[in-house]
C-alpha cells in the first residue's frame, strides 16, 4: 500500500470516527490498542496495569466530537490522555500508601521519560505491525522462529507441517518483511533471534 492510499484510508477512518461510525472506531482501536497498553504499562511500571486506562481513553475518544487532522494528531491525543490517566492512578496509589503509613517514592512520570516512551513505542509498534501484517501461516512461523527462538524442526512438529513447508513459509515471510523493513530495520528484526 503506498503512502497516498494509506493517507486516504487514514482520512476515512478519522472522518468515520468524527461522524460516530463504530466500524471506524473499531479499526482505530485494533490498530492502537496493543501498543498503547504497552505504553501505559511502561508508564505504570506494570505491564498489565494499563488496559483499563486504555479502554477509558478510547471511550473518551468516542464521546468527543472533535475531528483529528491526521493520525499523528490522534496519537498525540491518545498518548497524552493515557499519561494523564496514569498520573491520576499513580497519585491515588501514592495517597493510599501515605494513608496506610507506607512511604511511597515520588515516582510520578517525568516529562522526559514520558516523551521518550512515545518515541520507543512508535518504533516497537512499527516492527510489531510489520510482523502482524504477514499472511497467517508465514506470520506464525516467523513469530515462532524469530521471537520465540524455536528451530524449524520444533515449529514443524508443533504446527504439524513438513519441514519443507516451514522453510518455504519462513522464506516468504522474510521476503515480505525485507520489503517493509529495508536496511537496519530488517537486520534489527533478525537480530532479535541472533540470526543476523
Amino acid at each position: 500500500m503506498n503512502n497516498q492510499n494509506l493517507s486516504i484510508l487514514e482520512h476515512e477512518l478519522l472522518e468515520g470516527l468524527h461522524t460516530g461510525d463504530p466500524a471506524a472506531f473499531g479499526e482505530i482501536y485494533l490498530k492502537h490498542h496493543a501498543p498503547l497498553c504497552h505504553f501505559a504499562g511502561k508508564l505504570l511500571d506494570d505491564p498489565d496495569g494499563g488496559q483499563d486506562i486504555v479502554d477509558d481513553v478510547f471511550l473518551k475518544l468516542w464521546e468527543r466530537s472533535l475531528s483529528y487532522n491526521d493520525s499523528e494528531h490522534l496519537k498525540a491525543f491518545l498518548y497524552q490522555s493515557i499519561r494523564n490517566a496514569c498520573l491520576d492512578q499513580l497519585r491515588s496509589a501514592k495517597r493510599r500508601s501515605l494513608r496506610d503509613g507506607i512511604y511511597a517514592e515520588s515516582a510520578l512520570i517525568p516529562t522526559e521519560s514520558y516523551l521518550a516512551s512515545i518515541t520507543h513505542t512508535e518504533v516497537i509498534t512499527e516492527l510489531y505491525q510489520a510482523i502482524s501484517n504477514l499472511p497467517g501461516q508465514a506470520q506464525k512461523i516467523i513469530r515462532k522462529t524469530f521471537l520465540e527462538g524455536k528451530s524449524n524442526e520444533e515449529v514443524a512438529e508443533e504446527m504439524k507441517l513438513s519441514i519443507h513447508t516451514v522453510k518455504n513459509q519462513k522464506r516468504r515471510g522474510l521476503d515480505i518483511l525485507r520489503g517493509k523493513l529495508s536496511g537496519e530495520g530488517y537486520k534489527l528484526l533478525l537480530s532479535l533471534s541472533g540470526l543476523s
Partner: protein
Amino acid sequence: MDYQRERESIRAGQLILKELNGELSVSERAELKRWLGKSPVNRRTYANLQSGELRSEELEGLRNYDSTESLRNLLPRLSPKPKSRSYKIYVGLAAALLISIIVAIGFYLRNQHTNQEMQLSSKYGGAGQLRQERHHRHCLPEYRQEVHPDREGRNLRRHRSAADHRSS
C-alpha cells in the same frame, strides 16, 4: 491544543525507523540530530533502540494483549453518538421551519385584523369615525359589546341617537 511535544516524539520515532530502514534524507538526518541534541533521555532512547535493548520479549509482549476480545467487551459501552454534522443540519432546519411558521401565523393574524378594520371602516365611513367609536367603547361601559357583528349597526345607531339628543 496542539500537542507539540507529543508530535515531536512521534516524529522522532518515525525518523529512527527511517534511519533503521536506510531511508533517511539529509534534512531528516539533521532533524534527528537536533532531537538527539535536546536531551540525554533522547540519546539514551535512541541508543537503546539501536543496540539490542529492543528485546524479542517486548515485541512478543504486545501479543499478550487480546485487542479483539477487548474491543468486543468495549463496544456495548459506547453511548449512541449523534452524527454531529447531520444533527446540526437537522436542528438548523427545524429552527428555520419553526420561525417560518411563527412569522406566517403572525402575518395571517395581522391581515385578518386589518381586514376586519377595513370592513368596519368602509361600513361606518372611514377610519376617523371608527377611532371615534373605539373611544366611546372604551369610555362607556354600555358600548363594550358593540363589536359583535350583528350588534354593530344597532349599537352605533344607539350611539348616534344619544349624541343627537345631547346636541339638541
